[in-house]
């Protein structure tokens, strides 16, 4: 890893904050946009050293450590591994793209809008980069406020309802996460995540903390019974808000499962895996079936998100390399593809002022460039071979077939459903008649619109055709997570055949298990 000469992650987190404060002194709306766009490009530049991520090691890289409140075991601890690297990169990429796609979409309270965008970026990067549980929670919750405002101020007609639902759901879900964090502080003696990962906890403790954490993450993902906030929020949010929701926010939930549930509550994760797999499959099928019946383009894509995220959680709880690889790839791919689709919905909404399919149909003849891009991302969305989502979905399915034939058989129709609803939508939008195109006012894509879609289109093919580099980057971290999981469960004496009553009596192992690779980055001061 080449030393970039500055703390990359801190810069990524604090630069948008500084820019947001500067924004207060900017007067004209046009300049606000340009200013935030430049800030976005700078943010991407700052993120460049992340490409120096060392392959083949599982330990945390780009680590920063400062004491924060040593009395309580709180520290300012940042770092990246294979699980979080891509998410940070994706977040940094999304900032300038979101500015570009809101260039004409947002007309009122422009300064506040960009202020919220910058805060969002900062908080989201913080969530993925934190290696301290409290720090993580701070970013996790702080992110709610700008997202709430994005929906509540610049959203559609029912924005107040949607934003409130979003806020209440996600906040209520994460309150018990705070209790779990406090409990870990006592059981593990620290808030530091690498340090907590070294520890072993009794099954009973894991059981309850897993439930508390899983509730928070499942709401964020969202998994089947907790998904109802998502369609409302997606449909009402402005274009950039939907993009951030889809590309970054939903990933926080699945990232939470990988980062916290698997390493901290390994036995409980295995114990609950059948339930989580069942819920994932329910999400895949339910999301797909509901998407099939939608009249509203945005709602359709929102429900397809539920289905796609179902694949991610399915992959995670298979506990094999292919499954988790697929899950992480799918997290990235869903961010790219669905993000792009939401941008394009915003694009067409600016012309038709409606999100109904019926008001946006028959455009193939008149807006070929738009339909080409829409087609591309639609194909990517249902996992057409050669595009990015294919890689993710096939890996998850391979993992599923290795692990559990039934789960795999049930997930396959989900992939077919995706093709059904996306092709139906694509067909209506391209050839549906009568065409809703209006000659005078509608134009095909402008240069600015090309500009924000091209990078995502390139990524679709790059990951679709050459996923090796990406897989190499994430593999060591995944292997470590899975190896630690089985080592810890062995030490605990856990087996799937035991009854719950027996399991509840399992005490924490006396000595800490030797984990796959001692984390050299745990820079805890000597006690």
């Amino acid at each position, binding site marked *: 890893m080449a030393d970039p000469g500055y703390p990359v992650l801190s810069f990524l987190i604090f630069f948008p904050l500084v820019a947001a404060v500067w924004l207060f002194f900017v007067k004209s709306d046009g300049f606000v946009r340009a200013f935030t766009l430049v800030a976005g490009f700078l943010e991407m530049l700052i993120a460049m050293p992340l490409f120096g991520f060392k392959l083949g090691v599982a330990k945390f890289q780009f680590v920063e450590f400062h004491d*924060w*409140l040593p*009395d*309580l075991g709180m520290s300012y601890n940042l770092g990246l591994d294979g699980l979080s690297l891509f998410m940070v990169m994706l977040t940094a990429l999304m900032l300038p793209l979101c500015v570009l796609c809101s260039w004409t979409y947002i007309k009122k309270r422009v300064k*506040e809008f960009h202020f919220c965008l910058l805060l969002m970026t900062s908080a989201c990067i913080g969530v993925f980069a934190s290696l301290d549980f*409290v720090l993580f*929670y*701070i*970013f996790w*919750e*702080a992110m*709610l*406020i700008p997202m*709430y*405002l994005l929906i*509540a*101020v610049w959203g559609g007609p029912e*924005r*107040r309802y949607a*934003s*409130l639902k979003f*806020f*209440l759901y996600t*906040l*209520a879900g994460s*309150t*018990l996460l*705070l*209790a779990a964090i*406090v*409990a870990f*502080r*006592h059981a593990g003696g620290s808030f530091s995540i690498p340090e907590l990962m070294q520890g072993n906890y009794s099954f009973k403790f894991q059981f309850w903390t897993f439930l508390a954490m899983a509730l928070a993450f499942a709401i964020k993902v969202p998994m089947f019974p907790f998904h109802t906030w998502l369609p409302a929020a997606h449909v009402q949010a402005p274009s950039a808000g939907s993009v951030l929701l889809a590309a970054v926010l939903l990933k926080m939930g699945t990232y939470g499962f990988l980062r916290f549930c698997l390493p901290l509550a390994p036995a409980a994760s295995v114990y609950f895996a059948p339930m989580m797999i069942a819920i994932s499959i329910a999400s895949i099928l339910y999301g797909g079936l509901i998407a099939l019946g939608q009249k509203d383009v945005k709602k359709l894509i929102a429900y397809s998100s539920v289905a796609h995220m179902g694949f991610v959680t399915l992959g995670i709880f298979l506990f094999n390399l292919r499954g988790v690889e697929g899950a992480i790839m799918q997290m990235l791919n869903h961010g790219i593809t669905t993000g792009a689709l939401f941008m394009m919905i915003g694009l067409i909404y600016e012309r038709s002022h409606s999100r109904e399919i019926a008001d946006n149909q028959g455009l193939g003849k008149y807006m070929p460039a738009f339909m080409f891009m829409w087609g591309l991302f639609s194909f990517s969305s249902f996992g057409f071979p050669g595009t990015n989502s294919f890689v993710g979905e096939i890996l998850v399915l391979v993992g599923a077939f290795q692990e559990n034939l039934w789960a795999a058989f049930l997930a396959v129709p989900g992939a077919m459903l995706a093709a059904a609803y996306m092709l139906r939508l694509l067909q209506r939008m391209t050839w549906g008649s009568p065409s809703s195109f209006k000659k005078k006012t509608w134009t095909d894509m402008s240069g600015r619109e090309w500009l924000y879609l091209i990078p995502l289109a390139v990524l679709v093919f790059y990951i679709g055709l050459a996923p090796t580099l990406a897989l190499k980057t994430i593999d060591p971290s995944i292997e470590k997570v899975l190896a630690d999981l089985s080592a810890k469960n062995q030490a605990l004496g856990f087996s799937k055949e035991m009854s719950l009553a027996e399991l509840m009596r399992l005490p924490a192992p006396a000595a800490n298990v030797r984990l796959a690779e001692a984390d050299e980055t745990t820079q805890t001061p000597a006690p």
Partner: protein
Amino acid sequence: MNIGLLAPELYQLLLILALFAASLFADKDKGDPLWLPGAAIAGVFVCAASMGARGVLFYDAYQVDGLSQFFKLAVSIGYAVTVLNALNQPTLEKEKRTDYYMLLGMSAWGLMLLASSVELITLYLALELSSYSLYALIPLRKGDPRAAEAGVKYILFGAMVTAIALYGLSYVMASQHTTYIAALVGKPWSFTAAPMAVVGLTLFLGGFFYKLALFPFHFWAPDVYQGASNETASYVATVPKLGAVVVLVRLAALLTPGMEITNILALLGAVSMTFGNLAALAQKDLKRLLGYSSVAHAGYVMLGLVSGTAAGLAAAVFYSLVYLLMNLTCFFVICKVSDGGENVQLNDLCGLYKRAPMLAMVLAVGAFALVGLPPTAGFTGKLFLLTSVWEHGYNWLVIVAVLNTAISIYYYLSMVRHAYTKEENLDGPVIKISPVNAALAGALAIAVLLLGVMPGSMYDLAKAAGQGLLP
């Protein structure tokens, strides 16, 4: 006797005497005494300068230690902010203003004495000193009969609770044969060993629960806040609570988890936060809303008191300072939004982001802090409380507390929703605030954020205070 130990109290007393002289001799039609804000702010510095003072005075009845100095500083901050906030109070006649500040000062002085009292009768006297001036302050609202009603309610409740507390005190004295807290620490406090003392102490604590507005002693809070003028309410809702917390922290040193009294505290805390939050959901008047919210926050403070550890006491101390700041922030905005001193309804906040962007932002910071959302001090304070009480026999209380956050988010958020997302009343009159007020509002908001992000130094002070009681 080292008189220097008493610097904060003496300074406050001088301030009161100066106000008394001014009320006798100065020209009453001039209104606010212009020298007062500066003098009140100087008081904060006097308190800060004597943070390190330690000693015992007046036959061991009066102790100057980390805890007392911390609270004196907090009280002086509260007093200074209230004075700045109450300048040009629209519902107060000009000729009454000097007296008003004098009574406020008396109340703050009583609370400072309370912070240092370590003997039960001294405690009681200091408590009454701070209460009596409030009895006179609350009805001072021009042309509003509700203020008189609020005053009567406060006095009747107060008198009743005082009687109960004194009755309890007599039991404690009869059973334990001492009124010094230091001597009481060594005595047995379980029901089997000293039933009379347990009953007596519980009743005595009631007097402070009343000040703190803990369930079931909370009935006065929403009514009094609503009836009193905005500026008075912002004082009554914040600073006297500090006095109650400091006494409870001192007495909590007697308690260990599992005792009957500790269980009662935990139970009252749980009921108080749940009831306060549920009742606040239905409120439309902002001061009533904050009244019920203060009932809920009184419940949160109990978390720190039942843990029986120095960390718990430190967390309670820290949280009370945070509570003071975030409530002052919200009340400050209410006072400025109120046009002519009327009560502010939720709907009056509509379009605030346009009419007064600064106030809207400060209100958002205050409201999110009250919820306990990071990165504000409300979150940090709550985190300290939760961490301190986990694994000390009250895990269920932690669960109740975090679930209460989920209940409370709705009504705090609706303040922000009205200010930022309602499109009505956008063209209402722009609210002008003077540069001084803008600076004060900004300073409060920044303090709330700073204590959230960098709580280190304040927490160290709170920890020193806690360790002074429970080594």
